[in-house]
């Protein structure tokens, strides 16, 4: 294989034996526009994997973003491009607005996620769990990161909101983002993901793969 071919084949995100006490060495790659779903019981290490990829916990192994080694860049720089979206988002201000640097872009995003634009002027504690979940997701999506690490992004949402979120995730994929999606919802995984994986006691194993022609559709 020529050097040129190798660099053009370089996936968006590549994990090389990423491991910690609760995660067996994990090697996988995510291409641009690809979504990878991780299923499995609670406590199996799904969130641990996402936190490892985001470099939020100490561990071993290496991760690469477009052939750029994680260890070669400062951690905040990595996390701006590989954004971890917690199942229950944290808030560093009691108002919603300070969490969104660009208010206009935020209002447009909130509308697409089925949230009233005036939610931006609300207090965080006044919002429902489902609203907070979508606000947290909007916060991450607005950064337009190269890779999104989503921890049960629709756990607290009704069918309509879930569909809106999935549409927004598809738009991100179409822009060339990569997504690692942790979900308990098998049908959601089938709807969004190109490959399905199973996490059990810190060991990640392949479950299914969408037919190649479907992946290109």
């Amino acid at each position, binding site marked *: 294989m020529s050097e040129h071919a190798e660099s053009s084949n370089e996936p968006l995100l590549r994990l090389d034996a990423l491991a910690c006490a609760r995660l067996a060495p994990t090697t996988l790659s995510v291409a641009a526009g690809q979504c990878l779903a991780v299923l499995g019981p609670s406590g199996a290490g799904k969130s641990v994997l996402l936190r490892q990829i985001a470099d*939020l916990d*100490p561990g071993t192994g290496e991760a690469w973003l477009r052939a750029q080694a994680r260890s070669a860049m400062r951690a*905040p720089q*990595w996390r701006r491009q590989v*954004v971890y*979206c917690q199942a229950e988002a944290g808030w*560093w201000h009691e108002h919603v607005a300070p969490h969104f640097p660009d208010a206009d872009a935020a209002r447009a995003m909130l509308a697409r996620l089925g949230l009233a634009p005036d939610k931006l002027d609300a207090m965080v504690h006044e919002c429902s769990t489902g609203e907070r979940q979508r606000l*947290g997701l909007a916060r991450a999506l607005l950064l337009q990161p190269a890779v999104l690490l989503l921890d049960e992004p629709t756990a607290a949402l009704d069918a309509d909101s879930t569909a809106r979120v999935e549409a927004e995730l598809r738009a991100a994929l179409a822009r060339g983002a990569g997504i690692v999606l942790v979900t308990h919802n098998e049908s959601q995984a089938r709807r969004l993901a190109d490959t399905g994986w199973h996490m059990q006691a810190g060991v990640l194993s392949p479950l299914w793969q969408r037919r190649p022609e479907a992946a290109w559709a």
Partner: protein
Amino acid sequence: MGVISLSIADLLTAASLVLVSALISLLLRMGLGRQVLWAATRTVVQLLLVGHILRVVFAQDAPWLTALVLALMLGLAAREVAARPRERLAGRGNAWVGGLTVACTTVLTALFVLHTALRPDPWYDPRYTIALVGILLGSVLNAASLALDSMLSGIRRERAAIEAQLALGAPVGQAFAPLVRASVRRGIVPSVNQMAAAGIITLPGIMTGQIIAGMDPVEAAKYQILLMFLLCGASGLAAMGAAWLAMRRLTDTRDRLRLDRLLPERGDA
């Protein structure tokens, strides 16, 4: 000067006031009687001991002896800073934070004043250095322990907020800013309040002492002003230092929040 020397009989007379306190406790069944008497005994022993030690140190006028006394004072204050917060950093982290903060801020501010405003001759004259460090330590200890306690007790509460910012690519300094700010504020506020109240609500101890010792009240006031400024600066530095060092211990070079470096909360008290 007109210093009234106190005799043993004078102190015994004053001790009757302690007995009043103990008696009140007894009558109201507060169960504090034993504690009051024990505290009074400690005061007598500790202060007389310090008085005698200082008399020897001042008479010897040997730099090494002064340095030894100062080191002992710094060490005890550092231990107090480490012990006061309810939460503990792993790997003797509290001791590190306490020791570094107390030593750096106290030595820095003491040297500053000894070479600018006070200028005793020699500059390490024990009469000045020991008294100065003694006063400084009180404020430094309070500011540092309050700031450290605020950081360590706040970190669990603020965990989600801090991690959310880190996950979106904020560096540790930015993610910790609100907690550090609140902790430093809590450390500094007492000394600011003390400055604001000085002379109106309370007559500060140093000034009172100097007036009783026969000094002109205005001269005594000037001394007190100098000390107030000094204490304000020292508590500011101490609160900042303790909060910053605690933040360093709770994070690592990859800008992670390392709650594993905070020991599990103890069940008691």
